[in-house]
C-alpha cells in the first residue's frame, strides 16, 4: 500500500475532546496532566527493546471483540 500524506491540521486536545464528546472540565484536567507529565519527562524517553511479543506479555485472556 502507498503511504498516505496527511494534510489535515494537527489535532489539538480540545478538538479531540470535542470529536469524542469529552466534557470541557474533564478535557482541561487531562490536558493539565499531559503538560505536567511532559514537563517532568523533559523529552527523556525509553525504548522498548524487548523481543517478546507484546501479546505474550499480558497474562489474562479475556476477549470481548
Amino acid at each position: 500500500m502507498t503511504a498516505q500524506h496527511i494534510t489535515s491540521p494537527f489535532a489539538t486536545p480540545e478538538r479531540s475532546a470535542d470529536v469524542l464528546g469529552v466534557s470541557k472540565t474533564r478535557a482541561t484536567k487531562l490536558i493539565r496532566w499531559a503538560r505536567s507529565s511532559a514537563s517532568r519527562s523533559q523529552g527523556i524517553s525509553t525504548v522498548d527493546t524487548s523481543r517478546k511479543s507484546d501479546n505474550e506479555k499480558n497474562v489474562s485472556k479475556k476477549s470481548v471483540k
Partner: protein
Amino acid sequence: MKKTSPKNRLSKTEDSVFLNIPYDSLFVRPFLAYICGICAYGLIPRATLEIPGGARRLDRIVALIESCRYSIHDMSRVELDMTPPATPRFNMPFELGLSVLHAMKNPTEQTWFLFESKNWRIQKSLSDLNGTDPYIHNGTVEGVFRELAKAFIREDRQPSVRQMQGLFDGLSPVLPRILTDAAASDPFNARAFKDIVVFTTALAQTI
C-alpha cells in the same frame, strides 16, 4: 466548550482514524501503541468502543466508519476465541469488509490499512485480499510504531518512532489513574479510551 450532538460528532472528519482492533487483554499494549502513534501524527483515533450496545449498534458502527478519513484494521488475532462457546472472532473482518466496501464506493473518502502481526497469515485467513500488502508489526509496541510510520507521512511534522515511544512512556504512568476514574480494569472502555486519546493528543503537542 460547545456541546456537540452525536450526529455532529459523526460528520466527516479528515483527521479521524477508525481503529479496528481486538478488544482483548492480550492486546492492551499494541492498542495503546496504536493510540499513541495515531496521536503522534496529529490524528484522532476512533473505535467502536465509543458506541453503546443496542439495536442500532450496526448503524452506528457504519456511521462511525464512514465518518473517518482513514481506517486501520488489525487482523492479528483472528484465531478461535476459546471462551465457551469457542467461536472465530468475526467482528474485525466484518468491520474490515464494511470499510473496504465504503472505500471502493467512495475512493476519495476513505483509505484503509491492513495490519497483521505475522507475515503471510492474512493470505491464508483472508485470501480475498491477496494483492493487498499488510503492515506486519510482530505484535510489539515498537512494531506498531514502525508500521504506522510506513503507512502515514506528515511532511510538516513527521513523528519519529522514538517520539511515538515517548508518548507511550508518558501515558503509562497516568494510565492507572485514567482507568480508576473510569472504574475500568482495562482501556477497552468508552470513557477510558476517550480520556486516553485526549491525554495523548495533549502530550503529542509537546513533542
